[in-house]
C-alpha cells in the first residue's frame, strides 16, 4: 500500500471510529493517538535515527549484543541502621544472586551531619545506613571484595567524602583505586530541583563535582563519577519527557562546568552515567529510554564535539517508580514492579533496582526484597524479553512515541538554554515549577477519577493493617553516638585538626583539587560532619527558593 492510499484508508477508519465513539465514548485522559501507522513515521531514516545497537545514535542500545551477552546488573538499593546491619544485608543480597551493591545512606550522612549532631535526632539509620567516619565504612564493606564487586552509592552533596572513604577502605585491604568499580550519584542539580539533600550553593558544588571528574579520570578510571538522575525528578511528579529533558539539561551543565575547568570532554564523558525511573506506562517508558539515548548522543557529538564513541553513550541505571507503589493492597505492587521491570529491560537499561511491595509503608523486609529481586530474575531468565536486542523497534507506536518524547525534551532543553542553563533555571525555580505543575495535574486526575490507580480510587477493599513491617531499632542513634565518642577519644586528634586546617585553606583556593585533601582527612578518621563542617564554613549553605 502506498502512502496516499493508506491515508485514505486511515481517514475512512477514523471516520468510522469517531462515529462509534460518539455512542461509546473512549476513556478519558488518553495521551496518545488511538492508532499508529507508517504515516506516523514519515521521514524517519533508519540509519540516521536508529542505527544498529552499539552504534550512533544508540537509539537501539549502547551495546551491540545487549542482554544476549550478559544481563543487566541486578543492583538492589539497600542500607539501614548501622554499618553492621547493612553489611549483613549486602552479603545476603550478594549470596542471593545480586550482582552489584547499591548503598542507601541515612539523611544525616547525605546532608553531611554526624549522628551526634542535634539536627540528626530521630533520623539516624532511618532511610539508610549511618556513616560517620572511615571506621563505619570499614565495617560496611567487611568481608566484601571491593576488587570484584561494583558498588553504587546514593550520595550527592558529600559524594567526595564517601568516595574518599571507599578508596581508603579498599587501600587498607590492598586494593588500588584503579581496580575499583562503581558509581557515586554526585548529581547536585537534581537535589536542588527535586530531592532536597543539598548542602552547598551551586558554585562550590559544581567545583567539587569537577574535582571528582578530574581526580577519577587519573586515579579511579573505572568509576562512574556521576549518575545524572531523572529518577527523583519523575518521583517529584514530572512527565516522562520532562524527566529526560531536565536531566539531560543537568548533564549539559556538568559538561560545561568540566570543560570550563579545563578538562577535555573525552576525558570525563565516558564516565558519566544516568539514572531513569521505570514508571507505569510500559511502552511510553520504553520510548523514553530510546529517545534519551538519541538526544544525549547528538548533544555529546554535535554540541560538545566529543570524539570518543564512549562519550556519546547514555548508559543508564534504572529504578522502578517508588511513587507508584500503593499502600492499599500492597501485594498488587508486585505486579506493578514486574511491568516496570519489563519496561526497563525492553528499554535497554544497564542496571536495575526493583522496589519491594511494602515500600509505601516502610523500609522493605528481607522477604519482600527477595520477591523484588526474583522479579528481575524471572524477567531475565523466563520472559524472553531479554532475548532480542531492542525488541520493540519498528513498532509504529513506539517509534512515533520515541520521536515525540525526543521533540518534547528538545523543546525543554532549548527553553532552559534560553534561561541561561540548568543552574539558572533551577535558581529561578523554573524547573521546580514545571515539575510541581505536572504533579498537581496528576493528583487532580486521580482525585477526579480521570486516572485510575487500582486499589486507591477504584477496586478498593476494607483492609487490615499490614503486619510484619521492618522497624529500624530506635537505639541506632545512641549506638552511633557512642561509637563516635569512642572514635574521638582514641584517634590522633592532632592529625585530624591538621588535616581539617589544610582542607579549609584548600577550599578557599579554586585552583586546588580537593579530592586528595579530603582523602587525607578521612584517613585520619576525621568525621563526615567535621569535613563537611569545614566546607560549610568556607562555601556557605544553599538557601532553597521553593516556589509553589
Amino acid at each position: 500500500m502506498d502512502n496516499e492510499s493508506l491515508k485514505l484508508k486511515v481517514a475512512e477508519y477514523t471516520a468510522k471510529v469517531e462515529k462509534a465513539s460518539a455512542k461509546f465514548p473512549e476513556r478519558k485522559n488518553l495521551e496518545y493517538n488511538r492508532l499508529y501507522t507508517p504515516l506516523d513515521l514519515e521521514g524517519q531514516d533508519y540509519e540516521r535515527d536508529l542505527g544498529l545497537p552499539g552504534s550512533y545514535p544508540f537509539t537501539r542500545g549502547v551495546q551491540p549484543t545487549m542482554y544476549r551477552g550478559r544481563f543487566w546488573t541486578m543492583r538492589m538499593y539497600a542500607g539501614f541502621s548501622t554499618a553492621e546491619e547493612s553489611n549483613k544485608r549486602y552479603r545476603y543480597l550478594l549470596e542471593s544472586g545480586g550482582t552489584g551493591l547499591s548503598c542507601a545512606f541515612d539523611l544525616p550522612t547525605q546532608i553531611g551531619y554526624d549522628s551526634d549532631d542535634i539536627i540528626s535526632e530521630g533520623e539516624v539509620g532511618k532511610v539508610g545506613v549511618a556513616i560517620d567516619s572511615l571506621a563505619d565504612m570499614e565495617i560496611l564493606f567487611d568481608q566484601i571484595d571491593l576488587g570484584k564487586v561494583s558498588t553504587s552509592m546514593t550520595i550527592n552533596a558529600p559524594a567526595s567524602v564517601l568516595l574518599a572513604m571507599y578508596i581508603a577502605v579498599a587501600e587498607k585491604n590492598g586494593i588500588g583505586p584503579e581496580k575499583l568499580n562503581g558509581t557515586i550519584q554526585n548529581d547536585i542539580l537534581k537535589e536542588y530541583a527535586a530531592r532536597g539533600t543539598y548542602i552547598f550553593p551551586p558554585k562550590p558544588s559544581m567545583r567539587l563535582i569537577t574535582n571528582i571528574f578530574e581526580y577519577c579520570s587519573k586515579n579511579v578510571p573505572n568509576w562512574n563519577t556521576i549518575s545524572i538522575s531523572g529518577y527523583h525528578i519523575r518521583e517529584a511528579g514530572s512527565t516522562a519527557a520532562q524527566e529526560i529533558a531536565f536531566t539531560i539539561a543537568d548533564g549539559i551543565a556538568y559538561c560545561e562546568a568540566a570543560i570550563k575547568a579545563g578538562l577535555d570532554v573525552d576525558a570525563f564523558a565516558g564516565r558519566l552515567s544516568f539514572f531513569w525511573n521505570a514508571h507505569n506506562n510500559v511502552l511510553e517508558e520504553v520510548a523514553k529510554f530510546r529517545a534519551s539515548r538519541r538526544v544525549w548522543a547528538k548533544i555529546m557529538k554535535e554540541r560538545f564535539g566529543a570524539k570518543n564513541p564512549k562519550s556519546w553513550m547514555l548508559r543508564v541505571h534504572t529504578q522502578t517508580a517508588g511513587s507508584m507503589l500503593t499502600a492499599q493492597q500492597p501485594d498488587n505492587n508486585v505486579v506493578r514492579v514486574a511491568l516496570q521491570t519489563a519496561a526497563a529491560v525492553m528499554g535497554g537499561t544497564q542496571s536495575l533496582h526493583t522496589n519491594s511491595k511494602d515500600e509505601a509503608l516502610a523500609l522493605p523486609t528481607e522477604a519482600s526484597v527477595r520477591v523484588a529481586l526474583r522479579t528481575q530474575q524471572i524477567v531475565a531468565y523466563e520472559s524472553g524479553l531479554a532475548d532480542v536486542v531492542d525488541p520493540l523497534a519498528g513498532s509504529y507506536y513506539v517509534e512515533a512515541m520515541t520521536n515525540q518524547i525526543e521533540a518534547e525534551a528538545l523543546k525543554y532543553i532549548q527553553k532552559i538554554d534560553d534561561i541561561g542553563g540548568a543552574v539558572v533555571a533551577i535558581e529561578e525555580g523554573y524547573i521546580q515549577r514545571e515539575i510541581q505543575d505536572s504533579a498537581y495535574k496528576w493528583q487532580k486526575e486521580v482525585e477526579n477519577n480521570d486516572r485510575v490507580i487500582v486499589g486507591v480510587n477504584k477496586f478498593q477493599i476494607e483492609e487490615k493493617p499490614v503486619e510484619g513491617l521492618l522497624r529500624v531499632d530506635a537505639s541506632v542513634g545512641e549506638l552511633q553516638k557512642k561509637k563516635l565518642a569512642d572514635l574521638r577519644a582514641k584517634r590522633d586528634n592532632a592529625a585530624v585538626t591538621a588535616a581539617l586546617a589544610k582542607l579549609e585553606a584548600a577550599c578557599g583556593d579554586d585552583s586546588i583539587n580537593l579530592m586528595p585533601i579530603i582523602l587525607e582527612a578521612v584517613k585520619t578518621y576525621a568525621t563526615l560532619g567535621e569535613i563537611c563542617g569545614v566546607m560549610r564554613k568556607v562555601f556557605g549553605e544553599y538557601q532553597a527558593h521553593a516556589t509553589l
Partner: protein
Amino acid sequence: MEKRVRVLVAKPGLDGHDRGAKVVARALRDAGFEVIYTGLRQTPEQIAEAALQEDVNVIALSLLSGAHNHLFPRIVELIHEKGMTDVLIIGGGVIPDADIPVLKTAGISEVFTPGTSTTTIIDYIKENVK
C-alpha cells in the same frame, strides 16, 4: 471580612521529599485557605515559632523519612508551650499503621497515609478547625 483559615505546611527533619507537601499546599490554596509553606529541613523549634508568628489555625506536617515518632510529638509539645492550645495539628507521609495511635496520643489529631486524597484532608480541616 470573613475569617480565613491559615495553614502552616511544614517539613520537619531532614527529609527532602516535598511532592506531597507541595501538592497539599496547592490544594489547600485552591480550597480557599491561606497557606504558609516552610520549605525543607525545619527544626521543631522553627516550625513552632513560625506557627506562632503566623497565628495559623492548622499545622500540617509531612515526613517520609521515618523520624515522625521523634519529631511530631516534639512539635506538639512546643506549640502547647507557646500557649497555642487551639491549633489543629495533622500529619502525613510514610507512617506505619502501628505508629498512628501513638502519634494521636501525643496530640496529632489525624494522620494521613499515602493515597489519601486532598479532598479528604480539606474536609477534615474544615470539620475540625477551631
